[in-house]
């Protein structure tokens, strides 16, 4: 830590004292984010990157309108300038703010929260981490047909201090770990195939260095390389309407794009209309819309251990808790902030997060948990007469109403008469969100369930990059358009 807690508290008190006189609500947030990234690319270790970002922000509500200012400059004059700027901005906001902002009530907390870790990644030597990357690369090197191979390790420690004029004072230390590998093979100037593990963006979790070993990277490199080589001669993906089974990482993306984003309540109210779009899942459909088939149950739970969006409190001081979103397929909740929740007359679901000290909290995907079902992957496959199994995200696109989507995967296998058949390359499928989720005919079991971390979810103006998680096992859907 570059600053001691007592110094941060001093700034917080100064800020709150100065702003409270003029504003109905004030919060102060300090963040220090330490990051470390190592990577290897086709045998060459990239320069190690270590970064530290330290700064603070002040958010005020004055006469029902928001103001926000942030800075990385630490001195007394700057603290005062930042407060005054936030207030001046709130006064300007009021010029075009016919409906005053109200906030859903929240309890006041005086608390500390920390990710539980066994091994602090920042205590592991860089040399040991480099050796791990080299060991993965050595396994890829056994396959001379590959044109490229790569691996990465990514560690982050986030310290947050939050204090509000409503009496909350919370500090949190969150720790994230990520790792992954991929390899590529060039068939021709027009065709190149990639295979990645654990997913195309690796795997990310909240936790310590011990988590990396649980990803199983070393055990899957031979399979990846073999598949990449085989993809050169694999047949093209068949086209038509058929049954599909999604791998857990692909299911994670499907949940993220077509359940997570549509249920962000700020988007539902139109906050993203000019950028990442709106949502078909409007409040008039709450408690009515059969969003998915009855076997689908989804909830938000930032208190769920180990997820990349696991935290004690969101950036408005709302305590993390399990909140249902889809129950037996029916839409029953949203991912909300205090402001958006108040518009529905509901409590906040604790989903307001900023991607650092320089941004305002907005409604974000948290840990989205799709409750496991009962079937194993093998059982699911055995029930399919004609279909395709799709694995590892390659491409995705969804319209600005979060309905029409097209997804591509790195690889697939035909399913014929209950058995996995030939490998196919460049598979893709498309659909419309509600129709697609209502065609979900099987949800995989807890034994094959994984909480996938997504380190790069973009949203907002200015753009913010959130860390989210989606928990899923294998999912099966019927009558899906493939190709």
């Amino acid at each position, binding site marked *: 830590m*570059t600053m001691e807690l007592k110094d941060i508290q001093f700034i917080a008190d100064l800020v709150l004292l100065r702003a409270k006189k003029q504003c109905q609500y004030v919060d102060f947030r300090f963040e220090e984010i330490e990051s470390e*990234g190592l*990577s290897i690319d086709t045998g060459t*270790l*990239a*320069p*190690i*990157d*270590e*970064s*530290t*970002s*330290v*700064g603070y*922000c002040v958010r005020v509500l004055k006469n029902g*309108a*928001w103001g*926000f*200012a*942030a*800075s*990385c400059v*630490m001195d007394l004059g700057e603290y005062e300038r930042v407060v005054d*700027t936030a207030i*001046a*901005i709130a*006064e*300007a*906001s009021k*010029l*075009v703010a016919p*409906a005053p902002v109200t906030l859903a009530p929240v309890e006041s907390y005086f608390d500390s929260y920390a990710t539980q870790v066994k091994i602090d990644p920042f205590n592991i030597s860089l*040399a040991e981490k480099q050796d791990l990357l080299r060991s993965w690369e050595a396994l890829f090197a056994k396959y001379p047909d590959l*044109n490229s191979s790569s691996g990465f390790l990514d560690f982050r420690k986030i310290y947050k201090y939050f204090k509000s004029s409503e009496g909350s004072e919370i500090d949190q230390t969150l720790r994230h770990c990520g790792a992954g590998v991929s390899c590529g093979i*060039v068939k021709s*100037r*027009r065709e*190149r195939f990639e295979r990645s593990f654990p997913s195309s963006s690796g795997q990310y979790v909240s936790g310590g260095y011990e988590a990396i070993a649980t990803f199983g990277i070393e055990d899957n490199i031979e399979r990846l390389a073999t598949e990449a080589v085989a993809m050169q001669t694999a047949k093209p993906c068949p086209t038509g309407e058929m049954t599909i089974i999604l791998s857990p990482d692909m299911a994670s993306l499907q949940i993220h794009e077509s359940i997570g984003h549509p249920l962000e309540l700020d988007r539902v*109210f*139109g*906050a*993203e*209309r*000019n*950028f990442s*779009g709106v949502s078909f899942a409007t409040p008039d459909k709450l408690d009515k819309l059969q969003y998915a088939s009855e076997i689908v149950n989804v909830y938000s739970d930032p208190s769920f251990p180990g997820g990349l969006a696991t935290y004690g409190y969101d950036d408005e001081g709302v305590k993390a808790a399990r909140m249902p979103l889809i129950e037996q397929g029916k839409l029953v909740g949203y991912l909300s902030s205090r402001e958006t929740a108040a518009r529905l007359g509901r409590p906040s679901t604790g989903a307001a997060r900023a991607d650092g000290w320089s*941004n305002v909290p907005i409604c974000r995907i948290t840990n989205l948990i799709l409750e496991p079902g009962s079937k194993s992957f093998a059982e699911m496959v055995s029930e399919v007469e004609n279909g395709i199994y799709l694995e590892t995200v390659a*491409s*995705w*696109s*969804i*319209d*600005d109403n979060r309905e*029409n989507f*097209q997804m591509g995967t790195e690889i697939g296998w035909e399913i014929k008469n209950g058995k996995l058949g030939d490998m196919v390359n*460049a598979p893709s499928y498309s659909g*419309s969100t509600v*129709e697609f989720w209502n065609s979900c005919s099987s949800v995989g079991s807890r034994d094959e369930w994984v909480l996938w971390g997504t380190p790069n979810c973009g949203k907002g*103006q*200015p753009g913010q990059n959130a860390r989210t998680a989606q928990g899923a096992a294998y999912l099966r859907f019927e009558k899906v358009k493939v190709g």
Partner: protein
Amino acid sequence: MLERDQIIEVLKTGFAKSNADQTELLLTGEDFSLTRFSESQIRDNLSRSEYTIYARAIKDKQIGIATTTGLTEESVAKVVDQACKIAKLAEPDPKFVSLPKMEGELKPETTSYPQTADCTPKRRAEGVKTVADAGRDEKLEASGAFETTTDYVAVVNSLGMERFWNGTAAQLSLTISGETGESGWALGYNRNIDDMNIPLLAGTAVDKAVHSRNPVSIESGQYTVILEPAAVGQLLLFLSFMGFGCKTFLQHRSFMVGKIGAQIAGENITIIEDAFNPELRGQPFDYEGVLRQRVPLIEKGIAKGVVYDSYYANIMGAESTGHALPPDNQFGPYPKNLVMSPGESTLEEMVGSIERGVYITHFWYINYLNPMQTMVTGTTRDGTFLIENGKVSKPINNMRIAQSILEAFSNAPMLSKTRTLYPQYSVVMLVPAMKVEGFNLEQAEA
């Protein structure tokens, strides 16, 4: 507001703390303000000062990089020390030769306007009010973002490099929409906020929204389309991601591989990376301090080359073109100022030349399908219209595209003579509208 001398002096204190063979300090930063609105109401409204210092230390070809947001001499000393320690642990990189030396002089050019730098939240709010009022009679709502920024870049290295630049920009993007799904979009980008015509932008978006009421569906197929400049820019940006940087070229991930000197687009397509274009006036040097070169990427449809930083220039036996990104990036060199040559037509002439086709305002969620074939997907958005008998006739529902960008740029018989600045993902493009034949559009299920 950061001052040149103050920043350069603080950065240079880092050299004394370095035991590396070569040391580089880079500052990037912004004084940024943004007013975001939706439902015709200001929602988020912010101002921030955010600066990052990157230290790069090289000892015996071992490279270490560290970054900090602290601007004090103490922070600089610490980050340099950290970079030196990391360098000791790195494997020597035999491909690294040297940091660049200071070569060439910057032309004194104004890219920073006090009107933009000092824009108040009140002025932004008044702009938002103009936008919000524009559609009120039609019962339309406004949403968007009005931002002003001053960007800073300063580079020093132990070989004598010393560069500083700051530039302002104002950007207003807005969507006008109604209860029945109609919507229209417009975007303005200028270095000088006084040059931004907010009533015109608002009026354009209102007009599009009004005319997009009660859309019809059309069948999937190949259409002759008119792409407004923003739509062209979105395709150009992805084309750039997929092939104009040297790293992707070397890794055989670029569609340019094996094509240099070959015809890859129509003869009327010329794409130049040009930070000094008088309309664009981009950051004049890269994040290593090397002056940006004017780099033809595609000239009269022929693939000409890619951009380099000093590291990849050495590997390729070429000179750096001045396109390094900050040293912690994984992407290698990339263009940031893309200029597409104009055509000779007016937009009206282009529309008038089409018997049956589709008019596209812009796209949403473009993503790769096959980068080597420059295939992308995405959907149209905020103003998609049918063209019949040379006129925009009626609104249509948004369509999904599945299109090779180079194929589109090979079948573009008309380009507009006027061009528009279009910024996205820190790249600014100067692009015309384009008529494309045989553009693949699919009905979007919903």
